């Protein structure tokens, strides 16, 4: 990321996304998981600023999604809704088919946590159906966790348990860790 400053923020290096955006967005995500929210917030906003300056919808969608993840982890759902509505709109308007389930699931999760439980669960179910239809694995297990958390909020404990079991299996099947 240190090398992707100034003019180099405008280079793609043959990739679909601008690395200057992606590196900052991923860093924001990782720092959120560690609870380093203020540091991550700075990188997340910088990712959005660069993506907007580049006028690149794919990079911008990604930047919004990862800053939203940081806010969701911190428990600040108010700011997150706007970011995710923007990410969903970008993924749909620009036909980023592979990423529509991820943005839809993230927004559904935030809706559920904001008191719009039924709407959130519907969006999460829609996202999971889309994952299966498209054969997309990216972020599937965490989206199943999010649906389970939404079921908990709706006091649908059995459904939540099924999701939790499935998410553990999916996460382990994807590779890096097994028991």
């Amino acid at each position, binding site marked *: 990321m240190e090398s992707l400053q100034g003019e180099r923020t405008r280079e793609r290096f043959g990739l679909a996304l601008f690395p200057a955006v992606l590196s900052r967005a991923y860093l924001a995500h990782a720092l*959120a*998981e*560690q*609870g380093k*929210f*203020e540091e991550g917030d700075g990188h997340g906003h910088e990712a959005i600023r660069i993506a907007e300056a580049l006028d690149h919808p794919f990079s911008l969608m990604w930047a919004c999604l990862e800053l939203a993840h940081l806010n969701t*982890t*911190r*428990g*600040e*759902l108010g700011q997150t809704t706007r970011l995710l509505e923007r990410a969903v709109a970008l993924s749909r308007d620009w036909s980023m088919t592979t990423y529509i389930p991820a943005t839809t699931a993230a927004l559904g999760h935030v809706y559920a946590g904001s008191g719009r439980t039924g709407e959130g669960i519907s969006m999460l179910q829609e996202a999971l159906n889309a994952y299966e239809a498209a054969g997309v694995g990216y972020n599937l*297990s*965490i989206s*199943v*966790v999010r649906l*389970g*958390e939404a079921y*908990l909020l709706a*006091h649908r*404990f*059995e459904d*939540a*348990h099924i*999701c*939790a*079991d499935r*998410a*553990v299996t*999916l*996460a*382990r099947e*994807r*590779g*890096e*860790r097994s028991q």
Partner: protein
Amino acid sequence: VVSAVNEAWALHLLGETASRENSRDVAAAESHFNAATALASELGMLPLLAHCHLGLGTMRRRTGKPIEARDELATAATMYREMKMRSWLEKADAEVHELA
């Protein structure tokens, strides 16, 4: 690493579902929370670690173990405060208030 992170969140959800009133299974919940805690500690996932303490504390309060509950909830509250996770801190404080 992403799969391990997602697995940790999934284990925490298993703990939450096992600890709920309608189908409470304390031993299973503790086992899942402990597994999530171990993974979260290994990966440095402090917010999830705090959630595990909150989940354990809440379950212990509800199952009549106030001393153990207080320890877990105090740990969760301290972590949320340090990370400035205000809405989660309010939830932990509300559980401590229930103990009193």
